């Protein structure tokens, strides 16, 4: 038994007995544990690759390993994670990526974080060490309590290890820019239906495309009138370095359908906007009152996350009730009830 796990388990059990709450912290890259009034379990040093065999298309790492490290380890073997994660900060940990569940620019094409999760080892609110899922791609033994941790923000307990699906890195890539109005998005999408896309965004009057795959397929798809090569945008976008990400207030908006007219009404009054995921995710910098925007987004069937993140968004009542009951199932004493630490979030509104 690693003494650190023993220590965390003992602290969880003691907290439960004393009615105390515990936070969970990795590298605190979201700045939510900075001024914690509650004590935190610090998983930032819990790092390293536990098992990686490229032929299995799976990797297992400790949760404090940074996503960057994971990418490097995979890159050395010509692989990538079988998902696109939102890399808000270079020190973001794998545990944090899974616990928050935010997906990155290639989500529609490479898959989501939850889908890449094959298994987790975790501690529950009683300090019990549990493993769910495994390291194989297909596994339907018991309830899927491993993927359930995606987006749970640690409310069911700290994730200690994660097994993730990997896939071969694309052999060839091409980044293109195309000057065109947003209204051309539906026809562009149609045109690109067979293309090996891993990115399609619209920002400040231009479409940006990323084509990745076998050289033959990429070359065939790249034959797009008026398109020019431009790799700079994708480097900035992947690391959230485009100017829009510095704007405030900023919202990350998911919508169920590509709805150009609705986007257009928001864009016309916005300070800046970036449409990602081929039209299903909108980053909107706007002075429109949050409540009004929220209402419009809800009406369109979507959800809105104020950025930078201060915690999970409220869920619809029925779903919130289910999550609450699940929390009690994992953590009857409510040790992790305050995750993420809201007091801390209010103390650091600018991070």
């Amino acid at each position, binding site marked *: 038994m690693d003494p650190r*796990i023993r220590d965390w388990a003992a602290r969880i059990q003691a907290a439960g007995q004393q009615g105390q709450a515990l936070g969970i912290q990795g590298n605190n890259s979201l700045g939510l544990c900075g001024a914690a009034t509650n004590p935190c379990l610090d998983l930032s040093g819990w790092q390293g690759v*536990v098992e990686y065999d490229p*032929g*299995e298309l799976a990797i297992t790492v400790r949760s404090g390993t940074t996503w960057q490290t994971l990418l490097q380890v995979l890159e050395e073997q010509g692989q990538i994670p079988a998902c696109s994660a939102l890399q808000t900060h270079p020190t973001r940990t794998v545990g944090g990526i899974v616990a928050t*569940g*935010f997906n990155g620019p290639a*989500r*529609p094409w490479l898959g*989501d974080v*939850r*889908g890449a999760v094959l298994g987790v080892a975790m501690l*529950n609110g009683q300090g*019990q*060490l*549990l*493993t769910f899922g*495994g390291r*194989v*791609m*297909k*596994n*339907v*033994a*018991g*309830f899927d*309590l491993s*993927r*359930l*941790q*995606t*987006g749970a923000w640690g409310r*069911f307990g700290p994730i200690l*290890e994660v*097994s993730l699906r990997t896939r*071969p890195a694309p052999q060839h890539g091409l980044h293109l820019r195309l000057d065109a109005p947003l209204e051309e998005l539906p026809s562009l999408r149609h045109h690109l*239906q*067979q293309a090996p896309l891993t990115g399609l965004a619209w920002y400040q009057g231009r479409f940006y495309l990323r084509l990745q*795959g*076998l*050289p*033959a*397929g990429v070359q065939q798809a790249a034959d797009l009138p008026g398109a020019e090569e431009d790799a700079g945008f994708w480097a900035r976008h992947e690391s959230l370095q485009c100017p829009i990400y510095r704007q405030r207030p900023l919202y990350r908006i*998911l*919508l*169920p359908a590509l709805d150009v007219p609705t986007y257009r009404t928001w864009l016309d009054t916005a300070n800046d906007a970036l449409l990602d*995921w081929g039209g*299903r*995710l909108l980053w909107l910098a706007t002075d429109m009152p949050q409540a009004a925007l929220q209402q419009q987004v809800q009406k369109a069937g979507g*959800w809105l996350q104020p950025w930078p993140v201060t915690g*999970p968004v409220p*869920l*619809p009542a*029925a*779903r*919130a009730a*289910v999550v609450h*009951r*699940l929390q009690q*199932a*994992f953590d009857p004493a409510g040790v992790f009830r305050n995750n993420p630490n809201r007091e801390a979030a209010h103390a650091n509104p600018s991070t």
Partner: protein
Amino acid sequence: MNISNEQVPLPPACQQALQALLGEDLLTKPEALAPYECDGLSVYRRLPSAVALPRNREQVAQALAICHQHGVPVIARGAGTGLAGGALPEAGALVLSLARLNRILALDPEQQTATVEPGVRNIQISQAAAPHGLFYAPDPSSQIACTIGGNVAENSGGVHCVKYGLTVHNLLGLKVLDSQGQLLEIGPALLEQPGPDLLSLFTGSEGLLGIVVEVTVRLLPRPEATGVMLLAFDHNEDAARTVGAILAAGLLPAGLEMMDRLAIEAAEAYSQAGYPDCQALLLVEVDGCDSEVEAQMAQIEAIALREGMAQLQTARDEAQRQRLWAGRKAAFPAVGRLAPDYYCMDGTIPRKRLPEVLARIRELSEAYGLAVANVFHAGDGNLHPLILYDANQPGELERTEHMGGEILRACIEAGGTITGEHGVGIEKLAGMCEQFTEAELNQMHAVKTALDPEGRLNPGKAIPSLHRCAELGAMHVHHGQLPFPDLERF
């Protein structure tokens, strides 16, 4: 074997209320109930007390509310093609068939989504999507019959999981009723849902956590071109090594299947697919644009030659592809002709352990005197050993199940799992006791209780009680070999 033809009636008040709700769509006569006494695991049969065949979501909700009020367990059922006994009735329970909720509610080619009722058959989705150049990727071998609701309940796979994933990877939204008939919506269909991943929790939960009444799936553009290769080998090991070499070379085939000699011979005799005389074969499907398909096929041929391939057949047009797939798709019924009965296993292992697990299966086959045909999804390490037996021979089923248990143990010891895509049902409860610790099973029970406090939904399936594990004497004996072996247990 567990055969009981004794019908236990529903409480009269419950039956009356269901009758008032459903009229003739409530079956209570033994002859009408008989088709529902088992699912695809037909060695286990039990007559339900009644079968409800609701026609819409409101009726499903009301039926659930009535059963809840009267304390009657509810067993959801799709097409009944499940292979693990997940839809096996129990005395005193209502079987809730969702087969008549079979409408495609919406198909949006622009958003590439389909929203369907649970009784829609898997293949109907791809058929409806085909005019738009789209398809629904998960394709379990029962796809002409199995329903999407059942696919969600089992997290079904198919032959294209390597590239396109399981059911869980192709879902965007669900509507689920709880045991009291209350609606939970996980949606609308977004590419990211806020909160803990409830889509995954309900997917593969085998009807224990809720009743799926609406499913929104992602559709994919049908690839411009597809190629199928049949790689024949004189040694099982060469074929197994080729699987690893293809994936290690950075290729991601759409399908990667393996068959051993007994399965090949049976398939050839049954379907005359023109399979060569060999010890093992791989079927590899690649897709993409024309030039991508050409490039991948050339690369795979070179790899296979290096690993000792003896013969190659390739197919680029639809008729040729269908011919090569015909043998594989007919493998189960073909093997079914070799013996009166067969028992289909579903363990999954890390691919690199394939040769040693195959060797272990051979050993067991000799020790038990029961032949085994191997047909499996090699690309994702999902084995389907088919144990041939004769249920009419006294004790042979028990011997077969015992041998199956040993195969699953070998899968767990190799770092794998007892079930890759068929589910636990009643069939693999003992294996659950071996794969999970007491604390892990307790956590699953706590989740079950959180969502179904009275334990009305499909009781006794999927997650064994600790009492049952103790009875089986099979509680978790392979500590060092579990997933995450570096983490010791308390």
